[in-house]
């Protein structure tokens, strides 16, 4: 009886031991796989980054502080632009690539008014007058919205698009504005979104994106100071300023 009990105990011990070994083997295997997988992901990340134009891997390491040597570019006294083809490293999420979300277009490389630019700064751009005022009409947004709902505003965008396509040497600034009720810092961002929405619409209609620049004024440049629904509606707007290059 005693021997049977001892044998049973030893058998159980052996089984327990095997089970533990099996558990440890599984844990170690999973850990190894995870480590290998994360290495692969990192490699993928760097590989994707390497495909972003002329920037070298070393330069990216420097950018995020992991490189041994650092390449620092002095701040400009002037407002000169470097003219890089790729001036930022974008995220690679699928939902940002356009086919799953709204259509967006990158800003033109040229920054008007800066050294090296073939365009003047905003002071060289003018509000449309005369017949052009009928082409480049101010469009208005609903509260806290960045898309245009009214048919008349969408038609105004279509008219502006036709003009810009027919006049490839005409350049415009689309300015995005908000009313005085929203938070001012957030409105700086919302103004940019409104201006970019109009720009994206124009590009979708066939206008060359390099003809259209945007400025966000948020609620810093009100058209109507009256604190009324009518005044607020006049402030939630996108305006055009244009420049004809000879």
């Amino acid at each position: 009886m005693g021997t049977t009990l001892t044998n049973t105990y030893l058998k159980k011990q052996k089984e327990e031991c095997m089970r533990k070994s099996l558990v440890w083997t599984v844990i170690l295997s999973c850990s190894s796989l995870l480590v290998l997988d994360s290495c692969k992901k990192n490699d993928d990340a760097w590989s994707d980054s390497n495909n972003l134009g002329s920037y070298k891997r070393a330069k990216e390491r420097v950018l995020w502080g992991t490189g041994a040597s650092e390449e620092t570019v002095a701040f400009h006294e002037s407002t000169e632009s470097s003219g890089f083809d790729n001036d930022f490293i974008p995220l690679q999420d699928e939902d940002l690539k356009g086919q799953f979300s709204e259509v967006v277009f990158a800003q033109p490389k040229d920054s008007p008014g800066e050294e090296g630019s073939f365009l003047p700064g905003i002071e060289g751009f003018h509000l449309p007058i005369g017949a052009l005022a009928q082409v480049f009409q101010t469009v208005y947004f609903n509260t806290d919205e960045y898309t245009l709902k009214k048919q008349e505003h969408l038609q105004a965008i279509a008219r502006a698009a036709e003009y810009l396509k027919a006049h490839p040497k005409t350049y415009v600034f689309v300015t995005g504005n908000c009313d005085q009720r929203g938070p001012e810092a957030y409105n700086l961002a919302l103004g940019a979104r409104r201006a970019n929405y109009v720009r994206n619409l124009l590009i979708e209609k066939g206008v060359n994106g390099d003809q259209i620049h945007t400025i966000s004024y948020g609620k810093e440049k009100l058209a109507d100071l009256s604190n009324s629904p009518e005044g607020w509606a006049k402030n939630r707007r996108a305006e055009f300023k244009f420049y004809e290059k000879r």
Partner: protein
Amino acid sequence: MKRLTTLLFLFIGILLFGVDAPQEIRVQLDTVSPLSPIYLSQINGDASFPAQYLKELEKVLTFDFNHNGKTKVAGKTKEKELLLLSTNNLKALEVPFAVSFSLKEKNLSCKVYNLIEGYAKPFSEVALTGALGQDRQKLHKLSDAIHKVLFQEEGIAYSRILYSYQNKASAGEDSWSSEIIECDWDGENPKTITREKSYCVTPVLIPKGEGLAKDLFLYVSYKTGQPKIFIASIDEGKGKKVVDIRGNQILPAISKKRDKLAFVCDAGGRTDLFIQSIRPEIGRTGIPKQLFSYPRSTQASPTFSPDGSKVAFVSDKDGAARIYWISSEVSNKRPTAHLITKKSKESSCPSWSPDGTKLAYSAKTEGIRQIWVYDFAAEEERQLTSGTGNKENPCWAGNSLHLVFNSSDNDSSDLYVVNLNQPDAVKITKGQGKKHYPTWGPR
């Protein structure tokens, strides 16, 4: 009948053991004031300066000790002045702290009495000049020294606030101008530090570098049309462009280690968060990286955690504008955004406290934007301000106790200072025009 009996028993049961009766809603209020009374003597002494000038100096000290979040200035009486002069029976002052000031040949000396611990500490003389602006700053420095002795913590009276100032708050091209102003923490000594004759907004003081003499700040200027981020020293005010990226660059924030710049930019066609490696005295390192973007959404107002590992920001990715935090570690994939403001609606302009424990922000509360504070440890959102005026753009002082913000009514906007122990905010700016986007830092 059986059914009726059952219902009757059920009703009696509920009455005896069941549902609690409606209770009164009780709000627990903190009735113990965190402020200790302090007695500040008149500035007694010779006739180095006119009496009116000395009154002005006393006002400076009174402001410092009335709004430091630790003390409240006790009213002056002749009896108390005599008690303090004689230094006999100081306990009769009935305050835990007292300071006596005396003036001799333009030198101000003072002695601090801690009547709880029973010691007195004299301070070295402060040489006054008679120029109110300079003397104000000397007194703020003295206030901080006294604060350090009494509370073993650095004061914030000798600090500076920067803000945007639009002189004419009217519509139209000709009046569209705004410069960056520097002032003391009580709003005095305002000094224009940019002279761009353009529209400058959202200044950000760059934390002081060890052994570096220049005080630097970032700001956004519209001088060429599109808003771009510039860096300048407070003494020179001449801006240099910081980031070389297309489009609108707005709402800059810098890490405490002064090595990372976060900002909002529409280079890719959306308003996204970006991060750029910089060395403020030298230049930028590498190119900017898109840190957070989300389809059909607007990102705004980044602020770094003190260790620089996280960024809190505003996004409307889930509908209304709310505040989230993400890791500032860069990757080629969007980092997970963690929602902070679950209770507050229309939240904006977050500011991470220097000690990392709190986040101040503005949220719409019963139709008015108020300042709220989120406590990371307790995971609670607490309303700090109340009353009229939309309050926005809070920024912490170095002690993580005080905040400066702007409050606007119709076309005017002024700066206010508040601290967590004294929720009654004090207005620090005066005069016409729009004063907004304040930032707070040491001298």
